[in-house]
């Protein structure tokens, strides 16, 4: 949508998208540009580079620094090129003696109030002020430096990642505008007037005390060393960079990893990234220190049982030990007694190899991915209704939306860069409807025009979406043309009869959802009547006993209103982790081969069998919860886990712990001794995203390259470890580079046939389907038809969850995420992001707290049917009374000790979002937490004991 050219160049002002072109002459060079383009940008496009300081092509022109002054024939004075739009026939001069003098005079004034410490300044070599001083030929400062100035202004070092040195500020407002226009937080302002003007976080607060969310947009915008990464202050300016993809959330931002040798100095969001267009959040921008953290595992380790210390061994011995254990287990308990789990934190190539290892070398389909516990209902629901297990749009599509529904998602915390884009659209006037038990920050978007909050009771999503659809159908708001042309008539009629029943009306379900009928009717009309209505949803939709039903309900609503198949509309699952989409695409689920081809499909299976040279089981394997149940029962005895921490992230922790301790062999491949690894017999040290090649696929189906910028700390990229394990099991795989794995994926996956590393190099990224029909990918899905021909409306009967409140458990717990931490926290807990969230707390409504005599900060015992844990209280009115909320970023919090085995009927995705609990004041940790502490201490000692001889140089 935003048409950049060379992403490494700053064109001064944003691109304009007009189809009308205007021709003009700049310094005698003829150029034609879209109407509305600034003279500054037009000149830059002609490679005529006018000096500038306050302008940047991700910000609207401001016209403050006056350095880009030009002369225009027939016009008086020296207009700023940044604020002057092009006109037909314009004759512009950018360089002459008068302009040179003017610019030198401007720079002279700037420098008269700027420290002259260039040689020791952290921005030395990367300073726009320095560059422009050179460009304009500044040689003297006639005013001297003794006058009133800002050189003694106090530094603000409160933020862990960047410093704010106002003595170096030129008050260009780029940081303020970046915070407003790019990030949408409005945390910065210019305080004072004239000479007293200064950049102010909040109301002259420290950065840490202000509303700043540390996205880094201001740091990137700053043309001086005023806002500077502390890593650059410490290490100096980087000397080379590599473009790669962030390993945090499903937005999949592109970054330049800026390096000194193999040391990562900083991550700078890449303007050429099609998912993020040069924006970032605190995690991707700054929280990369975990990659070099002292806790990294660097040596393979083995042990016979989990009550023994670890023994460091070489790769060969570890792989051989693992393979022998797996073979022995199968010999004793049968072919189906082992399996594997991969993670959405792994690359496509890694997840592909793990499922191949399991199907080909293990000889069964017991493969699953952590997407099981987040977005498996998306796969089921969207495939059933729309024919493809993926979101329908690009992120940029939101800029054409007129009404936006956000259900069970918290984008400002979990998908911050996309949230900034959405907020931009909201500021432009799009309507917002949020269906969520909590009041999320998106509702507080500054300068939004209209927002509706539907604060439904946890567990009543389907009743709500049915009520919305009921309004659409009974008030004549359907798009009959779309339905007639694009949808299966019989399924539509059946659905229409079902949804028209009075029992689905907003009035009938008001007492179930807790949302007023009037609010539901208003929301349905807003969405259905908007020219473009888009739905975005997250785990608040999927992680329910009716997660799949709700996804189908959302697809029904979009089809009924014709909001499918063009920009600005669609059904958009916001994927939690970086490669949720990819891990699902790559055949990690037990019933599907790569590309969502069912294992019972003989034609598809045959193609895999021919290429892989082995028969493939035609029945699905065990899903993660089924593996746990079978392990406890004794029929499932060995598990290979790559990059996933099931002991912390999966529900009913004590059940998971029982399953893990039932295994004869647990092989964990990870970068840290995570909670699962404490139950393992083999530890295979993995590589971080900085240490390997591969691809991630983000929430908009965009395949992005992950590029190796430093060697793997343990010597192997993760895909190489899987290859070695497979070889040791007697099934050799022959790859020299992940590009060859992608070539095999393309060969076997109809939606990937056009994908290759060469094409990714050429085009930057590709959105699948990418094949002969769509050689450069598919930004918008279902434009002309659905993969199943016609869209299928699904009957979405509301079935109340069995997890209900009663006198013993009167409150409903729902769980979620916060901005600074990521998933189980294994990465972000090992960074300075800890300063924002060093413990999980229980948010409780003041009225619920008052009834129990609870004050802010009290220790609370939270008890469910599964277990008990203890967290500190935080009084909050974000939730309605009767609902409490927590996060699961810290293992000792035991958030999942209280979540239950209740799961989605279709996919077994756990119902993290609804747990009936009671809360009371306590004075000490729960029994589980005390056990956890003891076990954790013991396992850490086992690890330290294994490392000691090596660190002392003693031969094992």
């Amino acid at each position, binding site marked *: 949508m935003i048409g950049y050219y060379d992403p490494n160049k700053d064109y001064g002002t944003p691109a304009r998208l007009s189809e009308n072109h205007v021709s003009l002459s700049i310094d005698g060079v003829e150029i034609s540009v879209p109407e509305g383009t600034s003279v500054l940008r037009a000149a830059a496009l002609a490679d005529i580079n006018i000096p500038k300081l306050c302008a940047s092509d991700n910000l609207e022109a401001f016209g403050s620094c006056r350095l880009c002054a030009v002369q225009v024939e027939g016009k008086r004075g020296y207009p700023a090129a940044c604020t002057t739009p092009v006109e037909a026939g314009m004759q512009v001069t950018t360089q002459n003696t008068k302009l040179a003098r003017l610019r030198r005079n401007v720079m002279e004034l700037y420098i008269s109030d700027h420290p002259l410490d260039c040689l020791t300044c952290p921005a030395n070599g990367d300073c726009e002020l320095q560059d422009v001083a050179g460009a304009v030929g500044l040689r003297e400062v006639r005013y001297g430096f003794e006058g009133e100035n800002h050189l003694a202004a106090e530094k603000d070092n409160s933020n862990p990642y960047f410093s704010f040195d106002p003595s170096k500020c030129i008050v260009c407002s780029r940081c303020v505008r970046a915070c407003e226009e790019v990030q949408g937080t409005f945390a910065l302002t210019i305080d004072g007037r004239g000479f007293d003007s200064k950049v102010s976080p909040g109301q002259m607060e420290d950065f840490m005390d202000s509303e700043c969310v540390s996205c880094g947009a201001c740091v990137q915008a700053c043309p001086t060393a005023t806002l500077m990464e502390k890593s650059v202050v410490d290490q100096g300016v980087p000397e080379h960079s590599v473009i790669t993809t962030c390993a945090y959330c499903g937005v999949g931002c592109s970054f330049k990893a800026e390096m000194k040798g193999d040391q990562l100095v900083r991550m700078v969001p890449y303007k050429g990234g099609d998912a993020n267009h040069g924006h970032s959040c605190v995690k991707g921008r700054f929280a990369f220190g975990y990659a070099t953290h002292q806790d990294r595992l660097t040596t393979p380790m083995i042990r016979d049982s989990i009550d023994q210390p670890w023994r460091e061994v070489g790769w060969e011995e570890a792989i051989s030990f693992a393979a022998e254990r797996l073979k022995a287990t199968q010999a004793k308990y049968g072919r189906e007694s082992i399996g594997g789990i991969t993670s959405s934190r792994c690359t496509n190539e890694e997840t592909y190899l793990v499922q191949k290892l399991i199907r080909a070398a293990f000889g069964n389909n*017991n493969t699953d991915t952590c997407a099981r516990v987040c977005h498996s209902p998306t796969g089921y629901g969207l495939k059933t209704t729309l024919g493809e297990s993926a979101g329908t749009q690009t992120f940029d599509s939101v800029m054409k939306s007129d009404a936006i529904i956000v259900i069970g998602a918290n984008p400002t915390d979990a998908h911050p860069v996309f949230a900034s884009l959405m907020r931009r659209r909201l500021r432009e006037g799009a309507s917002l409807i949020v269906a969520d038990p909590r009041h999320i920050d998106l509702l507080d978007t500054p300068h939004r025009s209209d927002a509706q909050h539907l604060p439904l009771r946890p567990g009543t999503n389907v009743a709500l979406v049915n009520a919305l659809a009921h309004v659409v159908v009974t008030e004549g708001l359907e798009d009959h043309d779309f339905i007639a042309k694009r949808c299966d008539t019989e399924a539509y009629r059946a659905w229409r009869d079902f949804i028209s029943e009075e029992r689905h009306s907003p009035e009938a379900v008001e007492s179930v959802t807790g949302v007023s009928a009037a609010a539901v009717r208003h929301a349905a009309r807003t969405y259905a009547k908007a020219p473009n209505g888009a739905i975005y949803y997250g785990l608040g939709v999927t992680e329910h006993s009716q997660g799949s039903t709700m996804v189908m309900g959302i697809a029904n609503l979009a089809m009924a209103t014709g909001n499918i198949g063009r920009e600005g509309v669609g059904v958009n699952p916001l994927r939690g982790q970086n490669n949720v989409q990819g891990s699902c695409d790559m055949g990690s689920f037990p019933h599907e081969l790569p590309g969502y081809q069912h294992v019972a499909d003989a034609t598809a299976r045959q193609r895999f069998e021919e290429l892989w040279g082995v028969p493939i089981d035609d029945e699905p394997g065990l899903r993660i919860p089924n593996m746990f149940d079978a392990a406890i029962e004794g029929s499932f005895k060995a598990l290979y886990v790559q990059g996933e921490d099931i002991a912390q992230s999966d529900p009913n922790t004590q059940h998971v712990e029982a399953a893990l301790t039932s295994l004869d062999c647990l092989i964990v491949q990870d970068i840290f001794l995570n909670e699962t690894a404490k139950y393992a017999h083999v530890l295979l040290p993995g590589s971080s995203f900085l240490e390997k090649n591969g691809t991630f696929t983000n929430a908009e189906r965009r395949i992005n390259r992950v590029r190796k910028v430093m060697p793997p700390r343990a010597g192997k990229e993760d895909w190489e470890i899987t290859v070695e394990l497979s070889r040791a099991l007697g099934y050799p795989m022959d790859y020299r580079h992940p590009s060859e794995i992608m070539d095999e994926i393309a060969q076997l996956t109809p939606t990937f046939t056009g994908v290759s590393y060469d094409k990714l190099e050429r085009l930057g990224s590709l959105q699948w389907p990418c094949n002969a029909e769509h050689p450069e990918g598919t930004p918008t899905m279902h434009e002309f038809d659905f993969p199943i021909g016609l869209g299928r409306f699904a009957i979405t009967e509301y079935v109340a969850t069995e997890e209900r409140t009663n006198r013993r458990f009167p409150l409903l717990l729902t769980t979620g995420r916060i901005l600074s931490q990521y998933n189980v926290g294994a990465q972000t807990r090992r960074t300075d992001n800890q300063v924002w969230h060093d413990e999980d707390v229980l948010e409780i409504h003041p009225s619920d707290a008052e009834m129990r005599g609870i004050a802010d900060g009290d220790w609370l015992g939270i008890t469910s049917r599964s277990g008990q844990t203890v967290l500190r209280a935080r009084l909050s009115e974000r939730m309605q009374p009767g609902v409490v909320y927590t996060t699961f970023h810290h293992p000792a919090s035991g958030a999942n000790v209280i979540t239950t085995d209740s799961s989605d009927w279709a996919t077994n995705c756990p119902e993290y979002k609804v747990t009936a609990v009671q809360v009371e004041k306590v004075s000490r940790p729960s029994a589980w937490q005390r056990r956890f502490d003891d076990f954790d201490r013991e396992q850490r000692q086992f690890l330290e004991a294994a490392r000691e001889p090596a660190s002392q140089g003693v031969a094992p």
Partner: protein
Amino acid sequence: MQHDQRATLIHMANQIAANLQSSDDAAAGVRTHLEKFWARSMKERLIGCLDDADCDLSPIARQAVEQMAEQRRQAS
């Protein structure tokens, strides 16, 4: 930790039946779902408990499992 996998499977099958109850031929829908998404061992286990006195399958779920059992008998 005590865990009754048989009870879990019956509960899961009943849950599927409850969610598909309003579909045309709900039993066929449940059977297709089980065939498509459940592991062989889980299906066999569920079929195996059909004759148990305490097999607490809902009518739709029972019908689906009986259909699945019959289909498997014919296939073998």
